[in-house]
């Protein structure tokens, strides 16, 4: 497993060269944006359950056959497995985002995932759709653009569930683009 720093060491070692100013400038970017990155990881971990359950619920709303008898989310046991898998994928994406490098996601999560799902008869398109919804809501949590548009004004109980981190507003474009790339990596590994 590598992080942004050890990735630089491994690629420099392949050339038996020192890590020079060019690479170090890129790493200084990582350091300058480190607090943004940690806030982004925190945004994922603090809302993991919400992100995962929303995504699975959204996937099922779009394809209600999944929870009818014979569907792949039909008994609670399989629904639970689906929620668990969503959380596992999101967890490895959080690790990759923390490390600034996708190697942990590739090695420990995506390697063989598609083959496993095919063997178990899990529909890949549904899974990819759930990951795509997780991507959208995670990016909203990172950028704090999550809205309560879907919640009725009168429904105060639902409004209380709406979670926004009280972090200072800043430029999250780099870290959110990086997070998006990890979700895309999962989606392309599944298709």
């Amino acid at each position, binding site marked *: *497993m*590598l*992080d942004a*720093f*050890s990735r*630089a*060491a*491994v690629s*420099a*070692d392949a050339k*038996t*060269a*020192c*890590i*020079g*100013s060019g*690479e*170090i400038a890129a*790493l*200084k970017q990582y*350091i300058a944006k*480190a*607090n943004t990155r*940690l806030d982004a*990881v*925190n945004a*994922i*971990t603090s809302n*993991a359950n919400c992100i995962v359950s929303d995504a699975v619920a959204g996937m099922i709303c779009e394809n209600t056959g999944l929870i009818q008898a014979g569907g792949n989310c039909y008994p609670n046991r399989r629904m639970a497995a689906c929620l668990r898998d969503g959380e596992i994928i999101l*967890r490895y994406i*959080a*690790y990759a985002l*923390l*490390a*600034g490098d996708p190697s*942990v996601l590739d090695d*420990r999560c995506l390697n063989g995932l598609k083959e496993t799902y095919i063997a178990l008869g899990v529909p890949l398109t549904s899974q990819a759709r759930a990951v795509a919804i997780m991507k959208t809501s995670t990016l909203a949590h990172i950028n704090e653009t999550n809205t309560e548009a879907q919640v009725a004004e009168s429904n105060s109980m639902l409004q209380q569930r709406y979670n926004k981190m009280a972090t200072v507003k800043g430029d999250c474009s780099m870290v959110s683009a990086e997070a998006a790339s990890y979700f895309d990596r999962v989606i392309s590994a599944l298709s």
Partner: protein
Amino acid sequence: MKSVVTTVVTSADAAGRMPSASDLESVQGSIQRASARLEAAEKLSAGFDAVVKEAGDACFSKYPYLKQAGEAGDNQGKVDKCYRDIGHYMRLINYCLVVGGTGPLDEWGIAGAREVYRTLNIPTAPYVAAFAQARDRGCSPRDMSPQALAEYNSLLSYVIESLS
């Protein structure tokens, strides 16, 4: 590759949990020291050839017998290899400064080094002399900031310990 981030991720993964607040704190802690480390790495790579030459010269001036017939540096090819090895260690120190842990030195430098040197009948004391010279030669305001020099020197000490 062992670093603060990978250690944190490995332990979180072993427990199957999301990165916790304390995990994020320890990453933040390592990042606070990172600018000094990167400064040292940058300065080391800028003056790399000079550092290697001085360190290599030090080992042959402290142990001139090495160049006598039958010793580890009795022809130019062997002497060049000594400088090359010192360069390898310095390069790994550069990586360690960037990574923020001793992973590169452990995995690519130290693991098996003792066995290799024993098999090839190469004394390690001259390497110690070379790195001790490099450690003594570093000077704070001239070469790099005090914190950067401390990080650099601690890695040189780590190499010296492994070779002693």
